[in-house]
């Protein structure tokens, strides 16, 4: 049976790192002249040597994105269902060892949150939890999806990795997409940041998109958490993962996210800094590698950055997000996973997007498509 680990094992972190940092300006110019960008070219585009060519990359990224996605930006909103967690993740506010009051939303609370979110206009929702399998396991998620299904056209989850049969159950219930980030593809660093809990199993996590592909989910979101390790090498592995998945599960759509470490309740500060320019370079490189992959931007980023990134290749964004369970209506003061940076209202974001000549898209799926399977 094919899985990503076979591909992953062919590469060595340190060799890749050396490759990327040894790329020359000539290499970059050669790649910029090409029409089709390969994974090898992607390595060139994320190298320090490509930094002076960032404007050229941005122009190309914009044109490619417009061609495929048109003048549109998709809106989504995260809804945190629970902050219970049995993992220790050194960078996360929900980490088991943080002495905070834990909360998991009841049915009634979920519907109160939904009512608030619907008033803001959202039709694509992302459900988020920590990892607490006894209380927030498959049956809890199945129930939650069933509860909210009639209110949203498109339901995604960002929760603990599950087994293939569990995903199949949730897909049948109306689940559209699953986001699961590897955090880092550096095995030793991964161990340091995930010392305890189910999440400490690097291989099981990395195999999750394969299980999702086999389960036949409509969309898989992948990515790395920037700050744990060198972002360039982690991004190469993410791109490698993307290309493997696209070839293997060709009926599935893919999206990439770019979370940068933000201050939170824990105490880990970024080991490797990723500047705004780095992030722009990376977004453009992804777009040049793949015209069709969805690129998503959360409210972790600042207002100024988000205003400017709309035109560069991003295809979906959130606004007015709360990262705590009940954050919209039920329990605004509960513990949040991380501080958001762009606190503007949905209406303000909508206007910002429109003023740049883009249509704000609320609905781009229909729940009946999922039900008819």
């Amino acid at each position, binding site marked *: 049976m094919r899985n990503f680990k076979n591909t992953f094992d062919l590469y060595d972190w340190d060799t890749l790192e050396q490759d990327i940092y040894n790329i020359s300006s000539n290499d970059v110019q050669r790649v910029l002249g090409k029409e089709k960008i390969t994974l090898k070219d992607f390595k060139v585009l994320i190298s320090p040597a490509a930094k002076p060519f960032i404007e050229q990359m941005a122009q190309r990224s914009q044109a490619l994105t*417009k*061609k*495929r*996605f*048109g*003048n*549109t930006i998709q809106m989504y909103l995260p809804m945190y269902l629970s902050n219970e967690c049995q993992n220790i993740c050194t960078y996360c506010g929900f980490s088991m060892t943080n002495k905070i009051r834990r909360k998991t939303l009841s049915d009634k609370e979920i519907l109160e949150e939904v009512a608030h979110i619907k008033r803001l206009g959202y*039709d694509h929702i992302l459900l988020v939890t920590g990892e607490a399998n006894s209380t927030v396991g498959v049956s809890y998620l199945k129930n939650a999806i069933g509860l909210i299904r009639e209110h949203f*056209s498109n339901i995604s989850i960002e929760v603990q990795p599950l087994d293939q049969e569990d995903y199949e159950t949730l897909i049948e219930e109306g689940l559209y997409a699953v986001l699961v980030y590897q955090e880092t593809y550096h095995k030793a660093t991964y161990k340091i940041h995930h010392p305890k809990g189910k999440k400490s199993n690097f291989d099981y996590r990395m195999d999750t998109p394969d299980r999702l592909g086999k389960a036949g989910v409509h969309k898989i979101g992948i990515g790395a958490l920037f700050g744990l390790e060198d972002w360039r090498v982690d991004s190469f592995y993410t791109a490698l993962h993307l290309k493997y998945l*696209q070839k293997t599960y*060709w*009926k*599935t*759509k893919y999206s990439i996210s770019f979370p940068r470490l933000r201050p939170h309740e824990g105490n880990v500060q970024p080991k490797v800094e990723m500047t705004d320019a780095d992030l722009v370079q990376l977004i453009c490189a992804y777009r040049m590698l793949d015209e*069709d992959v969805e690129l998503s931007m959360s409210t972790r980023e600042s207002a100024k950055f988000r205003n400017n990134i709309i035109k560069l290749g991003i295809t979906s964004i959130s606004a007015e997000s709360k990262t705590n369970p009940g954050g919209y209506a039920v329990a605004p003061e509960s513990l949040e996973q991380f501080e958001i940076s762009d606190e503007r209202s949905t209406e303000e974001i909508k206007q910002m997007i*429109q003023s740049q*000549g*883009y*249509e704000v*898209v609320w*609905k*781009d*799926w*229909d729940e*009946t*498509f999922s039900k*008819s*399977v």
Partner: protein
Amino acid sequence: MEYKSKFNMIDVLKIADKTFNSRLFTGTGKFSSSQVMQEAIVASESELVTVALKRVELENESDDIMMHLKAKHLNVLPNTSGVRTAKEAVFAAQLAREALGTHWIKLEIHPDPKYLLPDPIETLKAAEALVKLGFVVMPYIHADPVLCKRLEDVGAQCVMPLGAPIGSNKGIMTRDFLEIIIEQSNVPVIVDAGIGAPSHAAYAMELGADAVLVNTAIAVSQNPIQMAKAFKLAVQAGRMAYKAKLASKKQYAEASSPLTSFLNA
């Protein structure tokens, strides 16, 4: 005088029981706003506009896209973009008929979300089922002459072969196959997907396509309204040229000293 009357002849396109004066069909995706979309479609004089079912709030009577189409009395052609199987497509088409009150359906089954290439097997299955359910079926397919005949056999009222991968703006890359399809078809042939410039549209019409469907090239241009007009004119020009019979291309120049003149000596 005779010349003039020939070109004033009414040249309408008939699909099922509907006639169209315009041979340019358009789409609603990728525009910067519903307002721009509406203006561009009006400027194109298109009489059939496809809209993705997944983008419409079916239960909401004041859905933004639908409101803008209704305001100009545009014929809506719902499409099934997003479905992956025949079963899903049939379900979606029925939903569209119920919610939008039309039995016309643009059948799009592309299980591959990257290049959006149509699945010929599922498309044929769905077309057959939908025709039986009373739909006017307009299938989006590869430029595959045999598949076109098979679709015709099961009752599809037209075929919509692609000119190039959808959204690629590459033009008529499937020319040789389109020529065979046009030659053989008993139903209208509408070139869908890949048309990136008015010259591509004109070329498809010169080849004898009955109509073209254009979306991305209009929606994503710097000035969608001007571009819509340009496509309108190109489609008209291409059609007129087709009707007037193009002079055939000369492969070789005629030699000044012919090789066979000795035969006449």
